[in-house]
């Protein structure tokens, strides 16, 4: 087998199809690197070695019988907020300890139908509320590339697993940058699809109007392979759109190898290159823009004037939805329960003990912004600004095919830093929340590293359902 740590999903599928190795061998090789990494990297909340090997043996049997499927025998890591029937699903929260999902999420069912194997469940910020994976109820994850640093979050476990070579590919969820930011910090590809492109059914909801599931992979090609499996309308998710889904694995077919971006206009939103941007991040982003130009793209400065309101708008919309979405975790029907003589006491104790400080902070914020007397000043106003932010993006996409921007204002910071400064953490989402508020598609791709060796990604943003163009450009621009 090739080096398991650098093996891509496409490479693994090629090896499986050529019978260079079996799925059991592949799965075992991954388990062999995963298990020792748990002591320091701690990318996984749960590793299902037995189940994964059984699924792998079944995949080998099917392949021996002449069957094939898009992901037959390929192990995939799932973020801990995705339902896989029979597996725990805690969203890294103590309040869901002991809960076993009784059903498959739609993305799980689609991966399963495509022949994928479920290796285990990756660590995350508790209920996806965070951008460092340090709010996990089960301990933080460490960045496997920039050691000693955060992997980003909330899909930090998925990013660390893929970036550290512990998984071929993973799924994450992105509510305000939770796929793109950790992908950037761990040197991998992370896609936030257009809202409504991928079903949310079976994903523990963070903020329903912002959440999207997306792939986290080593290459754009691998991301396309996964997108082609998980995308599409789902009758179980009323917010998934029933429109045709173009095949992304073909997105770059036929492009001129010398000028693959010929005819494409990339906008550089000036608000995303402001004073707060780390100089090395700025330099790497500008270098990526130059490469795009060399590959045939036309660059153009654009403005997203409402960007400065992105963070407050996002933190009002998100916390409001979170406060309602997390209300169901009350210890009555499933998960951890702290018993009490009366029902109110049971609620209070269960939630006080089962939920971490950041979760409580956001539930309280969300409850506040929806409260009578404050609703118009906060929630309602934020909805209006959200519409204005969406219009910013519409206007930008009227003149550009895609936008090119940094993902985060600075590279991964050391574990433990800013942990007592929630506002500082919130502000680091400034470049990613826009895509979620507008609903448009976006992707982080590796763009190099700082002098200290910390990975830095850049972000490409596309209009709603503009994934084919997004993938075509990303494929040309990614540094492999």
């Amino acid at each position, binding site marked *: 087998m090739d080096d398991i740590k650098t093996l891509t999903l496409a490479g693994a599928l090629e090896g499986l199809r050529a019978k260079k190795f079996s799925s059991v061998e592949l799965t075992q090789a991954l388990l062999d690197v995963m298990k020792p990494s748990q002591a320091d990297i701690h990318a996984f909340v749960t590793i299902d070695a037995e189940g994964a090997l059984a699924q792998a043996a079944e995949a080998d049997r099917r392949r021996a019988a002449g069957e094939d499927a898009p992901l037959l025998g390929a192990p995939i890591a799932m973020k801990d907020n995705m339902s896989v029937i029979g597996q725990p699903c805690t969203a890294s929260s103590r309040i869901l300890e002991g809960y076993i999902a009784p*059903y498959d999420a739609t993305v799980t069912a689609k991966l399963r139908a495509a022949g994928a194997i479920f290796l285990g469940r990756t660590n995350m910020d508790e209920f996806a509320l965070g951008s460092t994976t340090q709010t996990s109820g089960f301990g933080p994850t460490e960045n496997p590339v920039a050691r000693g640093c955060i992997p980003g979050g909330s899909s930090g476990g998925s990013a660390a697993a893929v970036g550290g070579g512990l998984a071929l590919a993973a799924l994450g969820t992105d509510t305000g940058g939770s796929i793109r930011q950790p992908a950037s910090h761990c040197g991998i590809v992370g896609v936030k699809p257009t809202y409504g492109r991928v079903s949310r059914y079976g994903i523990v909801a963070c903020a329903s109007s912002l959440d999207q599931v997306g792939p986290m992979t080593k290459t754009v090609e691998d991301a396309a392979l996964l997108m082609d499996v998980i995308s599409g309308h789902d009758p179980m998710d009323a917010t998934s759109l029933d429109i045709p889904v173009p095949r992304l694995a073909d997105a770059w077919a036929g492009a001129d190898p010398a000028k693959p971006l010929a005819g494409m206009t990339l906008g550089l939103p000036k608000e995303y290159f402001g004073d707060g941007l780390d100089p090395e991040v700025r330099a790497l982003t500008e270098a990526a823009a130059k490469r795009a130009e060399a590959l045939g793209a036309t660059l153009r400065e654009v403005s997203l004037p409402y960007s400065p309101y992105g963070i407050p708008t996002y933190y009002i919309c998100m916390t409001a939805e979170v406060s309602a979405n997390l209300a169901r975790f009350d210890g009555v029907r499933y998960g951890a329960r702290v018993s009490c003589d009366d029902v109110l006491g049971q609620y209070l104790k269960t939630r006080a003990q089962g939920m971490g400080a950041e979760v409580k902070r956001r539930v309280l914020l969300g409850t506040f912004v929806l409260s009578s007397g404050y609703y118009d000043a906060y929630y309602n106003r934020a909805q209006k600004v959200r519409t204005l932010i969406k219009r910013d993006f519409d206007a930008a996409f009227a003149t550009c095919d895609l936008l090119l921007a940094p993902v985060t204002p600075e590279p991964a910071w050391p574990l433990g830093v800013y942990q007592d400064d929630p506002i500082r953490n919130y502000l680091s989402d400034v470049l990613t929340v826009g895509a979620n508020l507008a609903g448009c598609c976006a992707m982080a791709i590796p763009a190099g590293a700082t002098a200290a060796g910390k990975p830095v990604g850049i972000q490409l943003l596309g209009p709603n359902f503009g994934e084919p163009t997004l993938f075509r450009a990303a494929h040309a621009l990614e540094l492999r």
Partner: protein
Amino acid sequence: MEYEVVIGLETHVQLKTHTKMFCGCGTAFGATPNSHVCPVCLGYPGALPTLNGRAIRLTVMAGLMLGCEIAKRSRFDRKNYFYPDSAKNYQITQNDAPLCLGGHVDLPGGRTVRLNHIHLEEDVGKLTHRPGCSGIDFNRAGTPLMEIVSEPDLRSADEAIAYLTALREMMIYAGVSDCNLEEGNMRSDVNVSLRPKGQEAYGVKVEIKNMNTFSGIHAALEYEIARQTQALDRGQPIVQETRRWDPDLGETFTMRTKENAEDYRYFPEPDLPPVVLTQEQIDAWAKDLPEAPAARRERMMKDYGIPEYDAGVLSADRALADFFEAAAKRSGNGKLTSNWVMAEVLALTAKEGTHVKDSALTPEALGDLLKLLDAKTINGPTAKALLPELFAQGGDPAAIVKERGLGQVADAGAIEPLVDAALADNPKVVADYKAGKQAALGFLVGQVMKRSKGKASPQLVQSLLRDKLS
């Protein structure tokens, strides 16, 4: 002082759908607890609601029946509160963009009660309390409910019941709900206040929650009106509060006061896109609407020349009214058909404990039977004798009459010998009649009928007898 009573009702009506509002679970009543549940109605992590299209259609039909404006764009909201009967600790409802706006219910006697709106929401689970523990049955959780909100236009407990009765009749009529009170299909929150007669401003209102019997609502209102009257007469202020009716004690009790009112923190449900309806869609659904019972009553009086009482009884039951109209059209005699449906058919259904729509009697068969009667092809007793058979087994009356030779004999020449024989055989009765005993004639008619094996025209027999005896 004299007070005017002001009552407004918020009535929850369970829609007649096979499945729940936001998932595919069944809505059948009386199942084993927690047997009609799934991740969606149990509020499991990751589960999402999807809209039941039939619930939308039925609510629109209810709105059209009640003269509401149907919103082209409506929306669902989350109502946030913690309670163990709520699986998500929020209820999906419609707070400020309901499906139906305005509307009215016309009461017998001409008063009109305006509606504020009708919105859709999901029901909660059912709690049962035992010593030391409580149980939750989520079978009912997620059942679609329509909340019909009236304006404060009702002025007495009797009027409130008249309103609910009319509403219930219309909802059953439109096929929107079974409105089965025992199964909790129709539950009301009652708002009641008093104001000095002649004053325009409303008094302080009290809400009595969740009542499902009309008698309970009536009693609770009478109690509450008396309580408030007494308090106001003594100069005690009414506290704005929610009260609970205890049917055993026959009293209302404070549940919570306004100061303790919950803040439900409503906000648009992000898991469901707005409901967008086109005029074409609404028009198509309107075609399935039945005529409102009151309008039908009026029309049937005019079209069939039947009395108001008959029209009222017939129109109150949509299937019976449909049966009557089809039979009357067939027979060509509305009044005769009405008499027969009201007397003979309803007697049979009462006796058999069934509905005519579930019997073998088709309106065509009844119409044909009455046509034979009307044309004097058969006589009344023959028709009456045939009805139970048609009711039980069905059949074509004309064919039966022909096959069994049941056609009545209206030929005086054929009947006269029978009359003579009857007179000859009953000299004492003849003597009684001649002595002025009118009832004796009936006996003689019966004797002739018997001799004709029931086929003689009774009118003809009577006139022949009278001739012979005079």
